[in-house]
Structure formats: C-alpha cells, structure tokens
C-alpha cells in the first residue's frame, strides 16, 4: 500500500512539475516619482557635470527685458509676437539673400508656437529655450499672391495674434472682414511670387495653414527658430518690442 501510495504521489508531483504555468493573478498600479524617494547618489553624481555644463549656458545673460511680454498682451498683435517675427526676418533674410539673391517679403509664425513669456529682467539662453523649446526651423516658401490672399483670409478668421513681421499689414473691419492687406505698403498681387518665411511646422500644414502648398519653391534655411532668438537677443543690450498697427481691427 505504501509503495502504491508513493507511486501515486510521484505521479502527482510529476504532473505538478510539468503542468504549464498559468497566470493566476495580475496586479497593476501607478507609482509616484516624487520627493518621498531619495535620489540615487550614483545617478545624481553622473548627471552633475552634464547639468552644470547645461546650466552654465542656460543661465548666461544675453540681453535684458524692460517689461514682461506675453502672447496674450494683444488681440491681433503682441510685442512678443512682433519681436519673434521681426527676429526671423532680421536673422533669416541675410542667409536667404546670400543663397538666392532675393529678399524675404515677410514672416508668419503661429501664436501657439510662443511657449512662454519673456519676463522683465535678464534674458538668458534658458529664456529662448522656454519661449521656443521645439526644434522647428526657418523655411522660406515662395508662394503666389493668390496663396497670400488665402493666408489673409485665414488670419481674418482665426482672430488670433499669429505673429507677422512688419512688412505685412492687415486691417480688419469690426466684423472681421478684410479692409486692406498690404506687403511693403502695396496691395497683394495675385500673380506675384512672395517669399514668405515661416517654420517647418506651419509649412507642412500645422494649425490648419494650408496656403504654403502648392508653392513655386521652398528654401530650408537649416536655422532653428530658437537659435534665431538667441542670435537676436545677443545683438541687443536691451530688447524693446512694441505692439503696433501691423495687424489690427478697426
């Protein structure tokens, strides 16, 4: 009887050992990474030289802001937006001209692309990273006047302070209809080619801006918007951006 039992047991054990493993229970949870955890010192020490190097650059003062500038300072144009669009023109045009012999006619950026305020006080490299954390670059699209008119219609309907450079002026009536749209003070000629600088996000149709396609040519400047800002800040001891009349409603 004992032998019989032992054999039975061995058989049972054999089955037990070879039976496929089955998931019997699953537990799932989300764990917080916060102050309650002590930082691993080895990791901390490894990061330190990288952090110091980055912070040294980030904290270097490159200009001064006499006021605080926010993208919500105006309905159709803001000081910060005007500053950015004009900076893209000022820094981008020499490169474009050198490559093509032509000038950029004007610049269009997007309101949503201004990611932070410029605070009153010292402007550091970090300011540029905060205002423009993305890697978007300047791209110049050569589009016909009829496409520029589509852009004006878009701007009149969007009713947002999408940054434009000072060469463009757009005036809306109280209903949002276009009163006048001029480039260099001239009405837009539907058959003329305009060289419009923007960023690659908008060029590819971002924010519903579908007027950069089709086009008569495109020039990628390989110049990041953030670097445009850094280079522009460095040229000025104190920035002095202003809200003006480039895009207004009567």
């Amino acid at each position, binding site marked *: 009887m004992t032998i019989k039992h032992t054999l039975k047991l061995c058989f049972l054990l054999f089955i037990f050992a070879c039976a496929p493993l*089955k998931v019997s229970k699953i*537990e*799932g*949870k989300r*764990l*917080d990474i916060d102050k309650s955890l002590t930082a691993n*010192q080895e990791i901390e020490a*490894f990061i330190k030289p990288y952090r110091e190097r*980055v912070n040294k*650059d980030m904290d270097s003062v490159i200009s001064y802001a006499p006021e605080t500038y926010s993208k919500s300072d105006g309905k159709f144009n803001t000081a910060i937006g005007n500053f950015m669009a004009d900076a893209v023109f000022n820094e981008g045009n020499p490169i474009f001209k050198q490559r093509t012999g032509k000038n950029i006619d004007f610049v269009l950026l997007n309101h949503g692309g201004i990611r932070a305020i410029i605070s009153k006080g010292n402007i550091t490299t970090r300011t540029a990273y905060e205002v423009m954390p993305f890697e978007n670059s300047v791209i110049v699209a050569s589009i016909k006047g009829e496409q520029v008119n589509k852009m004006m219609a878009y701007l009149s309907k969007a009713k947002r302070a999408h940054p434009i450079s000072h060469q463009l002026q757009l005036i809306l009536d109280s209903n949002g209809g276009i009163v006048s749209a001029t480039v260099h003070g001239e009405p837009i000629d539907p058959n003329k080619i305009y060289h419009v600088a923007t960023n690659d996000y908008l060029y590819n149709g971002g924010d519903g801006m579908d007027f950069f396609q089709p086009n008569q040519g495109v020039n990628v400047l390989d110049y990041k918007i953030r670097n445009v800002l850094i280079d522009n800040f460095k040229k000025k001891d104190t920035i002095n951006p202003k809200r003006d009349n480039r895009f207004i409603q009567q």
Partner: protein
Amino acid sequence: MKRRQFIQKSTAATALVGLGGLGLQSFSPSKTKKITILHTNDVHSHIDPFGPDDGRNANKGGVARRATLVENIRKENPNTLLLDAGDIFQGTPYFNYYGGELEFKLMSMLKYDVATIGNHDFDNGIDGLYAQIPHAKFDFVSANYDFTNTVMDTHVKPYKTFVRDGIKIGIFGLGIQLDGLVDKKMYKETVYHHPIEIAQDMSRILKEDHSCDLVICLSHIGYEYRNSPNRVSDINLARATKDIDLIVGGHTHTFLPKPTIETNSVGKKVLVNQVGAFGLYLGRVDFYFEPGKKVQAEGASIMV
C-alpha cells in the same frame, strides 16, 4: 471506515505538501512565481525633477529618484523587467546639448531591459538616433518599422524574449505612422507597416513558436483617439488581437491612474497601461504564475 479513508487522504495530502516543499528546494517546480513589469513612456529628456515653481508638476519626477524606486523593487523581486515605450528624446536642453547621450546612458545605468522607438526619437534624424545607439546597453524592439534601408538596420529587433525564474516573456514593439508626423528628411527610408496585422503575427510567433508564458506589446501608437475612434490605438489593438497579456503604451501622454482592462478578440482580458509623460510616474504590473492552476474562463483575477 470513513474515518480511515479520511486519515489516509490527509496523510497523503501532508506527504504531498512535504514532497512539494522538497521539490521547491531541488527543482523549484511548484511555487507561485512572480514577474514584475515596470515601465515608463514619453520621458522626453526629463532627467531632473521639475522645479519647485513649476505650475503643474512641481517637485515631481527625476531619474535619480526613479533609480531608487526601481532598485528597491528589484531587491524585492529580482524577476523584474524595466521597459520604455518611446519618446525618450526631446523636451529639455539635455537633449539639445547631448543629443540623447545622457538619456541612454542613464537608462543603461537603471538597467532598462528594452525600449521601443517613438516619433520624437527621430528628432535629430535617424542618423542622430543611430549615433546614440552605442550608449544604450539595452535593446530596441519595433516590429512594424522596417529599417532595412537605413542606418538603423540590425539595431532594432521586432521582438525579444526573456526567461526569468523559468517564465518566458516575449516583448514586441510597435511604432506610430511617421508620414505627416515626422519630416521624411528625419526618418528617411524607414517603412511603416500597419500595427494590428503585425501585432497578430507577433503574438502568434511569441505564443506558438516561442511558447512564451507572457506576451507584452511595447507600443508608441497612442492610447486612444476620441475624435477618430477608428484610428489605430492601444485600445483598438487590444480588442483586435489575441494572446497579448499587456500593452505598455505611449505617445498620447495619457495619465492612467491604473491599467485599463480590455477584452480581446477571443474574449480574454488584456491590460493596457500608460503612465503619462516626463517620468512623473513608474508603471508596475505584477503577474503571478501558478503551475497547472485552473484559471477561470475569463482568465486570471486582475487587481488594479
């Protein structure tokens, strides 16, 4: 008579337990086994914790803290795998300065086992990603990106299998459609295949050909798209496939307080999880295995 039978049975049971105990030491076949899956997604170069003045995430996150948490969990259960569901790159000046070198080095120090590739991991171009590969001591999986005609060829596998405490775990990767999201100049000749068909193949290969006990999909296709419900997403993937136990997702920065339980194409439960972004959280899913235990029709008991 009846009493005698009872005693016999209990003696047998005791013996079984005793032998079982012995078996544990000699062949370890019959104890409950536990596999812990830890995961992050969309960390976006957030190496340092958010500062005390941050409007949304003040004092949260930080790789050095995550390291402590992972280390503690590994001490508690050495049979732990650490996964990342992509978008490792882009979001702080660390990426702008070092191109992802620091991110990969730190993930290697934390002993990540495997990661998949997110759209932002192409932000310095496929060449920028390739340049950082030597710093990654972990593997990349992506089953629906074909890198054959790119520099990444042979550096990304469709799937990887692990054996932990005798449990075989198969992990395959899925990436999001790049056209329209990433500049072609960046991803070059990377070819995207539809995730659901690929996932069906992968789960069959891992379950049937490799006899995996656990099949995990590491995805960067996004949790779900409310405005386009038919767009391929983790939720749609879970419903349209079988033999996947867990989908660890990313891309949509979805802060799930706990894993979602979905039902797959054959009526079995599948877990879908995603822990938001920026390394603010660590996801944890524990799988308990028992030898030959009869599972209920609807599968294992799930506690989330």
